[in-house]
């Protein structure tokens, strides 16, 4: 089956293609070079006047795993006004802030996304995360395994184990949990909360292990690098949401000794304490630090106004924020001496000073970070806003007058505290293609995804250009997943099952013996059963494992 996409205006930053008119050929799910003139074309799509990009990639969206299902359970009132009826083709579902898994797959595909990454998979919960992701159709999935408050790591660090030994444990955990990257959330803080510590600053010791967040960050970042994990350590830092945490974030950037790191939902970590209300934007400092430190990338975690739910592994922060729960109900969990989670519904309001400034801070970071290869477009779904607000966010980045009009509706004191209006920058389509495709793909080491070169997987999204960029990005004309047309004008036309991105870093099998003993001694499940097997993911052919390459030169 040979498909020709004819005459589209192509944006493919991985190959430096910035709006050139090109034909693209797809055979058996892959982009191929132009065939001989006499080759029969099975299907042709006339894309003259259309914008063509690779399928979009969301590197940070909470779409599966225990805390998401807790959020779903917690919010029947958010589902009720948002029913999704079944069709002859698609299953029914519900929800907006925490949509059902099947609906999540459809919605992403309809928006032209072809891969989404769950960023906070607890090892103890990895099986359920994969089960939920398996029920998220069409898109490819992947998950970052959460380390840093797990007893085994902290125990190893407290005992002075070597980096090599720790690397084996990290590698083992990635493989066992079927992960594609490593995430750390409030390093050591989730554990500290279980010992009744209510805050844990970068250099504050966990009261039981005596280990500090800085040490954990360094150890994990180094391990990730040495193991050749493509994506740098994915960091949700200390002091999330605390005014003044901009300093913690700057210290984190400089505190990892040049090791590559990715700072996630950095908007929530960019707060100063200036002004009458002791809350101000640290965006300029953060952006300046990212511009200067080339080893750092970030995603923003933009907030949008309206009802959502915050779901995080950081139960220390979530417990601290419980008073803001709207509606007034929330869940915190301590989990398996491994991690935790907190789910707090939240309503961001443009007439609330803090919320308004949070909105502005996120956009300031987007616009002040110069290199779009190092800042990714996220709302930390659903923490900042549901992922369905991406087209709106893209318009805010691409359209200054629209952005200013929205800015002028903010709480006046927040306007006074923000420099957003003085920022002239408008993102180009090329830059949007970088931050939503090429950059996440490169950062995660997805190889054949996120670009349109020969050999690339044919995940392709086609838009009709429109002055209103929100309209343009809301409902792409065509979405191809592995060469199959799955959505047309924002409607699903074919339901497929995506694959699961994983990594297979090598580790010394000697790590298994103490771990197995440790599980039997302390845990409530056996090591063998803790591992998520390949066949659980393949699931009789419904799923597929994609093993990504480690970075060259690594130990793997």
């Amino acid at each position, binding site marked *: 089956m040979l498909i020709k996409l004819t005459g589209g205006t192509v944006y493919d930053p991985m190959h430096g293609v910035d709006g050139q008119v090109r034909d693209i050929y797809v055979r058996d799910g892959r982009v191929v070079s132009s065939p001989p003139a006499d080759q029969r074309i099975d299907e042709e799509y006339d894309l003259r006047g259309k914008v063509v990009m690779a399928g979009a990639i969301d590197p940070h969206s909470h779409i599966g795993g225990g805390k998401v*299902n807790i959020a*779903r*359970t*917690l*919010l*029947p009132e958010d*589902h*009720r006004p948002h*029913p*999704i*009826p*079944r069709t002859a083709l698609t*299953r*029914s*579902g*519900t*929800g907006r802030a*925490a949509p*059902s898994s*099947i*609906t999540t797959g459809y919605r992403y595909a309809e928006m032209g996304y072809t891969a989404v990454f769950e960023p906070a998979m607890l090892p*103890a*919960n990895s*099986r*359920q995360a994969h*089960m939920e992701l398996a*029920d998220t159709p069409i898109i490819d999935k992947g998950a970052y395994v959460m380390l840093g408050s797990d*007893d085994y790591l902290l*125990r190893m660090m407290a005992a002075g184990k070597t980096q090599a030994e720790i690397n084996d444990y990290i590698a*083992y955990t990635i*493989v*066992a949990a*079927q992960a594609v990257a490593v995430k750390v959330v409030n390093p050591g803080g989730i554990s500290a909360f*279980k010992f*009744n510590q209510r805050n844990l600053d970068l250099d504050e010791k966990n009261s*039981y292990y005596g280990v500090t967040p800085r040490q954990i960050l360094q150890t994990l970042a180094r391990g990730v690098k040495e193991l050749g994990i493509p994506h740098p350590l994915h960091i949700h830092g200390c002091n999330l949401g605390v005014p003044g945490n901009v300093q913690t974030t700057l210290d984190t950037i400089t505190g990892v000794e040049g090791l590559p790191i990715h700072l996630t939902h950095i908007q929530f970590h960019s707060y100063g304490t200036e002004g009458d209300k002791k809350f101000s934007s640290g965006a300029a400092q953060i952006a300046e630090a990212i511009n200067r430190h080339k080893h750092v990338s970030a995603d923003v975690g933009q907030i949008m106004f309206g009802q959502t739910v915050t779901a995080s592994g950081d139960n220390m922060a979530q*417990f601290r924020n419980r008073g803001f*729960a709207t509606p007034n*109900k*929330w*869940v*915190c*969990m*301590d*989990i*398996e*001496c491994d991690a935790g989670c907190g789910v707090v519904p939240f309503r961001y309001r443009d007439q609330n000073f803090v919320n308004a400034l949070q909105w502005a801070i996120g956009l300031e970071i987007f616009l002040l970070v110069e290199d779009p290869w190092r800042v990714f477009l996220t709302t930390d779904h659903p923490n900042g806003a549901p992922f369905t607000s991406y087209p709106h966010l893209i318009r805010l980045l691409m359209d200054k007058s629209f952005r200013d009009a929205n800015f002028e509706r903010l709480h006046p004191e927040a306007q006074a505290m923000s420099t957003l209006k003085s920022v002239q920058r408008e993102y180009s389509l090329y830059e949007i293609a970088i931050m939503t495709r090429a950059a996440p793909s490169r950062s995660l080491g997805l190889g054949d995804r996120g670009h349109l070169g020969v050999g690339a997987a044919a995940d392709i999204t086609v838009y009709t250009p429109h002055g209103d960029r929100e309209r343009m990005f809301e409902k792409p004309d065509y979405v191809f997943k592995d060469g199959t047309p799955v959505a047309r004008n924002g409607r699903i036309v074919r339901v497929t099952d995506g694959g699961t991105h994983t990594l297979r870093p090598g580790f010394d099998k000697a790590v298994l013996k103490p771990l197995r003993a440790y599980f*039997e001694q*302390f*845990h*409530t*499940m*056996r090591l*063998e*059963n803790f*591992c*998520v*097997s*390949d066949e*659980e993911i393949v699931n009789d052919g419904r799923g597929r494992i994609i093993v990504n390459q480690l970075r060259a030169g690594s130990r793997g």
Partner: protein
Amino acid sequence: MNPATAASPTAKSGSRTHTSVTCPFCSLLCDDLEVTNRGGSLGVTAGDCARARGGFERDYASLSPQMDGRDVSMDQAVAAAARLLRGARHPLYGGLGTDVAGMRGLLALADRTGGIVDHMLGDTMYRNILAMQDRGWIMTTMTEVRNRADVVIFANLDAVSDHPRFFERNIWNAESMFGLATKSRRIVYLGEGLNTRPGVSPDGRKPLHLRNEPERLGELIGALRALLAGQSLQARTVAGVKVAELTKLLGIMKGAKYGVIIWSPPRLPFASADLVVEAICDLVKELNAQTRFSGFALGGNEGILTAGAVCTWQSGYQLRTDFAAGYPEFDPTRNATARLLADDDVDLLLWTSTFLTGQTPPETKAPTVLLAPPLRGLDTRCAVYIPVGTPGVDHRGQMCRVDNVVSLPLHQVRESALPSVAGVCNLLLQSL
């Protein structure tokens, strides 16, 4: 093959022994069982308890699919069941005693046929879910209890009656991660008619036992909350317990470094028990202003947590969800099995039960399709009976554990020709 996994049975002299087997017959999902298969008959040789033995060691009869009591082929049975489903104006998918894959299949059917899903223990589940949906909670998981809890309060339950190995695995475990001497844990029982012997510590220390009237537990918890808030009560006794004793209990709770209060929805068998659960959850939240305290819910047998979890991620709602309108609608009282059947609201019952109990569907005028293992003595008098295997015995599977966070793989411990629930659902879906 994922190189990190390594579980394979050992074979010797005609028998095969499977280790690290997960037991699907109670929601603890103990996975340290050893199951020996001698020519297809199973024996639990390590990690056993009455439930595990009752599940693994039960006998199957050689039952074929049936229609109205007559043996038919699988194809005929599936066709008949599909015909019933197609014609149904409001089918109920009940029982739901199955694994993740089975539940996925049943939900696909329910969505397609506009049916209702409810579990045989749906009443018990909603004691927790309603409380959680109204107020949220602070909860903990089994490994945390095992390693961290210094005060453990059992509210209206003894744990061992429904989960025989709870104390062995989580309370009197020999070692703990953080140097907690498990023998020194403070155990408290609330309620009557409890087997409190397991609560005596290995060094002989007796638990504290307050004998409240079980159905007035909510009032007792309310009194603890009032006392914690600094209120004074005119009442001298609460639910049959002296206020002075409650004050003492509150002192123990406030003094905990990591306290855990455990309840079990099936052990709150009275109306509006969700309000009692809510009170417990509120008390836990309030205690966390100073110290660390968590809730922990037992119950959840017969796969209800699995059924609820899968239904939630696929539809947004827990069970008692109705797909009749073309999208999920949730009504925890109207969509309750007993009520739907009593009021003749549904015209077809598809009943699934593969674990320890519930293989006899409830009485109803509506035609019934039964998916259950071919247990000896099974009553198969219904419109269509389709024998299925037991997940974790006859085929692989996955289930969610009692603490709602951990899921475990289920293993196949004997050869079986029986289809899985998921397999039958797929056949039905194709025949609709």
